[in-house]
C-alpha cells in the first residue's frame, strides 16, 4: 500500500504538472480584521513581494527594517508593493499591529495565524521572501536574510518593470 502511494507520489512529481507559481487558495485576515483571499492579491499589474516573518524572528525584523528604509524609493521607482505575512500564532496576534505601527513599517500586513499560507507555499523557516510579477506569477524566492540581501531582490524587481 505504502509503496503504491510513494510510486503515485513520484509519478505526480515527474509526469505531472508545472511547478507552482500561482497564489494558493487560502483566506487570511489583515490587521483590520478584513478577510482576504490570497488568490485575489494583486498590485494593479505591477510586481509585488510577499515576505513571511514573525515578531520573534530577529532576522525577519532586520529584513523588514531594511525594507522599510527603502520602501518609499522602491515604490517611487517601480510601484512595487510588499505584503508582509506574519506567521505569529495566537501567542502574539494582538501584539502585531502595535508592533508593526511602532516600528513605522508601511507594508500591507497579513496574519497567517495557523500557518495555512506558509504550509501551502512551503515556508519552513522564516524569513522567506517571494516575488510575484504583475500577473501574480511567482518569479523569485529566497529564504533567510543577510545584510544587503534586499539588493538582489531589487535587481529581480527591476527585471520585471523594464
Amino acid at each position: 500500500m505504502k509503496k503504491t502511494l510513494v510510486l503515485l507520489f513520484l509519478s505526480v512529481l515527474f509526469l505531472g504538472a508545472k511547478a507552482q507559481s500561482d497564489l494558493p487558495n487560502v483566506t487570511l485576515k489583515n490587521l483590520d480584521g478584513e478577510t482576504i483571499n490570497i488568490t485575489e492579491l494583486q498590485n494593479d499589474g505591477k510586481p509585488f513581494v510577499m515576505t513571511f516573518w514573525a515578531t520573534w524572528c530577529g532576522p525577519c525584523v532586520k529584513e523588514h527594517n531594511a525594507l522599510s528604509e527603502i520602501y518609499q524609493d522602491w515604490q517611487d521607482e517601480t510601484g512595487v508593493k510588499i505584503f508582509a505575512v506574519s506567521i505569529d500564532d495566537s501567542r502574539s496576534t494582538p501584539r502585531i499591529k502595535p508592533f508593526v505601527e511602532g516600528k513605522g513599517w508601511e507594508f500591507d500586513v497579513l496574519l497567517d495565524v495557523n500557518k495555512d499560507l506558509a504550509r501551502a507555499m512551503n515556508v519552513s523557516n522564516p524569513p522567506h521572501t517571494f516575488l510575484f510579477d504583475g500577473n501574480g506569477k511567482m518569479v523569485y524566492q529566497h529564504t533567510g536574510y543577510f545584510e544587503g540581501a534586499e539588493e538582489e531582490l531589487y535587481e529581480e524587481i527591476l527585471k520585471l518593470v523594464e
Partner: protein
Amino acid sequence: MRRILLSLAFVFCATTLFAQIENSQVNGSFQIDGQYYKVDEAIGITSETIKGQKVGLNGFGKINYSLGNFTAGIRYEAFQTPLSGFDTRLQGFGIANYYASYDNGTVAVTLGDIYDQFGNGFIFRTYEEWALGFDNALRGMRVIYRPAAGVTLKALFGKQRLYWVEYGDAAKRGVVRGIDGEWDLNQSFETLNNTKFRATVGGSFVSKYQKNTNTTYTIPENVGAFDGRVNLGYGRFAFTTEYAYKINDPSAFNNYTFNAGQAILASLSYSQKGFGVIAQVKRVDNMSFKSDYKGVKNDLDINFIPPINYTHTHSLPAIYSYATQPLGEMAMQLQVNYTIPKNTIIGGKYGTKITADFSMVNDIKRNYILAEGQEAPTHIAGNSGTLGYTSPFFAVGDRKFFHDFNIELERRLNKKWKLIAQYINLYYDMDIIENHPGAPVVKANIAFVDLSYRITSKQSVRFELQHLWDNINKGNTTEESTFGHEDVYKKRGNWAAALVEYTIAPKWFVSVADKYNYGNPIAGNRDHYYTASVGYIKESTRIVLTGGRQSEGMVCVGGVCRVVPASSGFSLSITTSF
C-alpha cells in the same frame, strides 16, 4: 483506514491523468536534518541517548497538487533514529499526512489530515511544528460554508495524530468534533464602513467522545467545551476578548479532578505610525483538553492556550522560556513600541526603535478540597475524584511563576554600523515550569548586544555578545549543597556567549560561536558549547553544515531561526522547496 488510503490513491491516479491540463500545478518541500553524534556525557549525550546509533536523522518530503478548486497533498516523514531531544515515539517512517480538498469560495470540503484553529485556539487548534516534532493533525473531515460575505461556518470531526501510534478504537483515542462560526459585521452592514468602527464576533463548540475504561472513576465519555469571542476596533484602538468554558473533564493531567475549566484573554491596544502600545490579561483554570484522558505532556492536545509573554530567541534568555500552565495561571502583559524620529537629539540621524515589555504570571487562587490528612498540593489540582478546589475568579494566587521585564534599542549608528541592545530581567519558577519539585527560583539579569558592520554592499560581519547573571552562582552556592539535586543545577549559574558571523548576501555565511556556563555551581557542568557553521543559500534551498556542541534551544544563525536539540558532533541540514 485502508479504504481512505485506497480512495486517496484513486484521487492521485485521477489527478495524474489530469496532470497535462495546463492549470494543474505541483509544489512541495523537502527537509533533512542529519546528525553524526559523538558521545559527550558532559552535555547529556550518552551512549544511552543515542542508543548505539551514531547517526540521527529527521526528514520529511511533501507534495501539494492543485487543479482549479481542487488541492491534494501528501507528506512523508522519516525519523531514523530521531535526533536527540525529540520524543523517541517519533521513531519510524511512513506517510504521516495526506489530504484532499475542494474549495469553490462558498463551500470548502477537506478530507484527510486537517490543521485548523477556532479563535485563539482555546478549545480547538491542530497544528504542526516540524522543528519541535509536534503534530496533532485531525484525521477526518471538515466543511467550511460561507453563506454570505463576512460569515464563515465550519464543522469538523476526526481523530488526532499521536506520533505513529495506531489511531485505535474509541477507548484508546477519543473522537473530536467541533463547529465554529464567525461574523465580520463590517462586511454585512455597509453603513459601518463609513465609521471608524469595526467588529467581528465568533463562537464555537467542541466535544470529544472517549469510552471510559477507568475502573475507579466514572469519567464523562462526552466532554463539551464552549467558546465566544469579540474583536472590536475603533480608529486606532483595538479590543479583543475570548472566553472558553469546558465541562468536567477528569484526566491524568489534572489528577482526576472533576471541576469545570475556564480561560479568558483580553487585549487592548492603541497604535499610530511610530507608536504602539498593548495591554493584555489572561486567566486560565483547568483548561488542559486532550482527546485521551490518560494523555501526558503535550500528547493529543485538542486546544492551545497561548502564553502571552515576550518570545525570546537569543540563546541565553531562551534558556528560561515560559510555557503556559494549563492547570491554572493569571497573566498580564504590557508592551510599548516606539520609534524616536530621525534627526532629533535622542533619535539621532537615522531614528531609534525602542521596545519595552513587561509580563508577569502568577498562580490562580485555590481553596483545596482535601482528603482527610492530605496536605494542600502546590502544583496539581487537588484531591482526585473530587472537584479538587474552588477558585475565586478575580483573585490572583500568591505564588509567582514568572516575570520578564525587557527593553530593546535598535539604532543605525552610521552608514556602516547597526546596533541592537537589550536588557532583560527574569524571574522563573523552575519548580513549576519544568516540574522539578523543590528547585530554587531563577532570578536572572541578561544583557545582549548585536552589532553589525557592512563591509561592502553585500558583505557584512555581525557580532553578538550576551551575558547572563544568575542569583545562584559558583561564588554563593557550594557544590556540596547541590548533592542529590544535580538535575536542577544543570544550567544554573552565570553564562557568557559570543558569536561572529560573516555573510555574503544573499548566498553564503560562516559563523563561529561559543556559550560558556562558567558560573555553574557544579564544576563538572562548567561547559563550553562551541559551534562553527557554514551555509549556502540559493533561492529556496538552504544547506548548512555545523560542527561542535550545541545546547538545545532556539538558534538564529545564517539568517533564519530554528529550534535545535542538544548535540555534539557534526550536523547537516538541507531544506528546499519548489
